[in-house]
Each structure stands twice: as C-alpha cells, then as structure tokens.
C-alpha cells in the first residue's frame, strides 16, 4: 500500500498517525508541505529514520526543491518526480492520503 503525507509534521499530526497505522513493508511518499518530514537534523528525523527500517520512503523532488530543501533530505529517502509518483500508485494496490 502507498501512503501519502502532505502536511508538515511540525504543523499536523498526520505523519505520526501514518507511521502508527501503516504496515511494515508499505511505502510512504512525502509531498507538498509533507516534505518537511523527510529532512535530516529536525525534531522528527529520528522518528522517520526508525520507521525507515521497515518501510520504504519517497519524497517528491519538485516539492523538496520548491522549498529549498534539496541538500537536507535524510539519506535513504528516494527522490522521485511526478512520473515516479504515478509509478508508485500503479505498483501498489491502493493509496491512502493522510490529509
């Protein structure tokens, strides 16, 4: 299953909610303001790194770059573009958007 997170973890609880209610082996894609959850050296980096042990994480590069965060993403989070987003949707059985 693919989970998308589009809100900053500093602003909303949706990333935390997603991590708690998603299964090992699922994929998580950070989009829009959600990409702030994909950054190193923040209050939430450890929580995300821990979740990365059992889940595959992606971040939408156009959103990362728009926000000037291209040098700050956690190692191991895969950067994709809108085509990659489409591929993920096609690959997984369903999509849950944590709005």
């Amino acid at each position, binding site marked *: 299953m693919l989970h998308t997170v589009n809100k900053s973890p500093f602003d909303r609880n949706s990333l935390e909610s997603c991590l708690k209610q998603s299964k090992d082996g699922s994929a998580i894609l950070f989009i829009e303001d959600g990409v702030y959850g994909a950054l190193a050296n923040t209050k939430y980096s450890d929580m995300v790194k821990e979740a990365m042990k059992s889940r595959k994480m992606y971040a939408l590069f156009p959103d990362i770059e728009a926000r000037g965060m291209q040098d700050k993403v956690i190692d191991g989070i895969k950067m994709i573009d*809108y085509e990659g987003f489409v591929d993920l949707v096609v690959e997984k059985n369903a999509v849950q958007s944590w709005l």
Partner: protein
Amino acid sequence: MKIGLLINEGPYQHQATDTAYLFAKAALAKGHEIDRIFFYHDGVNNSSSLTEPPQDDRNIVERWSKMAEEHNVDLVVCVAAALRRGIKDENLAAGFRISGLGQLIEAGIQADRLVTFGD
C-alpha cells in the same frame, strides 16, 4: 491503467489542486487513462469560469479545461457541494459537468486506482 482522482480543495488556497494536476499530466504522459476527476468540498471551486489569476501566475481552471479537451478526461463537480459554494451552470468552466456523489463511488469501482488530493 485507469486512474481516478478526488480533489477536495479549491484553487490557489491549497497546493492540492496543483499536485493533482501535475500528477494527472504525468499519468497521461505515461499512457495511463485518467478516467474521472471528481471535485468535492471546496474542490468544486476549481470549476469557476470567473477566476482571473494574475498574468504571471498559472491559470488553474483553464488547465483543467484544456486537459479535459485534449485527453477526454471526465471532470465532475459534486452538485450538493457546488450549490453550497456558489458553483452553477452559469459560472461552470468548459469541460466540467455537475453531477451527484454517485459519480465518485462509480469512479472508485471502475478505476484501478483512486487517489485523493486535499488538505
């Protein structure tokens, strides 16, 4: 693959509609079919023919109309949500049609994937 979209927010206020558009564009470019895009909640405001963004900004409503025309995408605006928010046939942009919530469920049944964009 057949993909349906649900869009829950209006233009300009939230990035959701922009992401949905760029996602749909990429899906079409890869040869997938965008079966239907359903506009719900404030998402119905994407269909207002009266929007007039600044010259140097993207025209969100026109982009949808153009996509509908070029790729035969079915743009459906929820009638109940639209009435609450002042979207009617008289200010409905080209390529959109107003219909019931059943169209959303139908999209969920007929498409291989349904992806939600919202706030």
